[in-house]
């Protein structure tokens, strides 16, 4: 069974896609930025082209962030986590950081629960999207708008 997490160097693929989408703004002095299209493409790679259904996954992140350098986030899916019914993977995407991916985690019945936490960087106010891959082949998603009053990636 193939895992939705890309092999060893997941960075390569998304970078090419993001760069392709940014040719139009290549002449501007501003640093590279993901776009809504770039995020959609990254999500499509994670789901193998399937459209995730809204709901069934929670994305816990403060709606207003004073400093985008370290933002705590929790992703959770209500699931019995049995062999027959479990979460295979959870991924987090963003719209306006230089790259659309944030992290992907592989889970299984051995996880006991589908709940992961991390601290992430947000370059600016933007939309975040969390997607979960379920054992029955379905994908679920949720999104959250976050306002960032101080950027992370762009300043020195």
């Amino acid at each position: 069974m193939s895992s939705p997490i890309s092999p060893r160097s997941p960075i390569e693929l998304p970078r090419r896609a993001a760069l392709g989408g940014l040719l139009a703004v290549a002449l501007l002095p501003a640093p590279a930025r993901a776009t809504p299209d770039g995020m959609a493409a990254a999500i499509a790679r994670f789901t193998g082209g399937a459209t995730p259904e809204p709901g069934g996954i929670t994305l816990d992140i403060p709606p207003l962030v004073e400093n985008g350098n370290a933002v705590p986030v929790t992703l959770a899916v209500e699931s019995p986590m049995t062999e027959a019914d479990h979460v295979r993977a959870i991924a987090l995407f963003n719209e306006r950081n230089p790259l659309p991916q944030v992290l992907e985690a592989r889970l299984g019945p051995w996880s006991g629960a589908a709940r992961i936490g991390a601290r992430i960087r947000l370059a600016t106010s933007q939309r975040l999207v969390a997607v979960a891959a379920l054992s029955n082949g379905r994908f679920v998603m949720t999104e959250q708008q976050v306002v960032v009053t101080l950027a992370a990636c762009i300043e020195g």
Partner: protein
Amino acid sequence: MRRRVAALALLLMAAGPRSGFETMTPELQAIQRDDVANPGMLSVAEGEGLFAREGCTQCHTPASMQGVAARYPAFDERRGGPIDLAGRIAECREQRAGRPPLPRDTRPLLALEAFVAHQSRGLPITPDPRLADARAEGERQFRLRRGQLNLSCAQCHDDHAGGKLAGATIPEGHPNGYPLYRLEWQSLGSLQRRLRGCFTGVRAELLAPGSVEALALEAYLFGRAAGLPIETPAVRP
């Protein structure tokens, strides 16, 4: 009239200094409180290892460090003036443990400072009474307008504490959490580093680290924060 003045004085005393912790978001407060989530604790762990390896245990135990940071800067007999914790650790390390000297704000010194100060976490700052003169000079530095922006520390951190500067809440500017993990630095840093940032912000000439002026200012800041608990390693935006 006298009763009203006394009542006002009581009110002001009861108000007391407020730690920058109180103006942070609940999420950041939670990170500081959690010893596994607080990135400053990585430096404390690093300092714990260095404390054992750098010769400190020849004379000290971690337990014997409890209370030390709460009474620094301390009056140094030889200098006839204040010495800060970073300076004392550097001096001890070099002269008593025989280690090669390290400049201020290098990673091992910061880790040692974080570890030692952390042993006083929760204890109230108790300024050294022998530093009254240094604190007076430090207060003069605090109230001195400086730099191209011609601002004094007092104008922001006394007069406008609680107000906003470019979306960020202005704290009273107390040193009770240092060395601390500043999100903007994405690393642990000292009070001196923070002061350098502030001075640069108003386009003023920097005070040389460890200089008489810098130590006097530090002595005043700790005197101004008397009673606040040590929070090292604090987390700040």
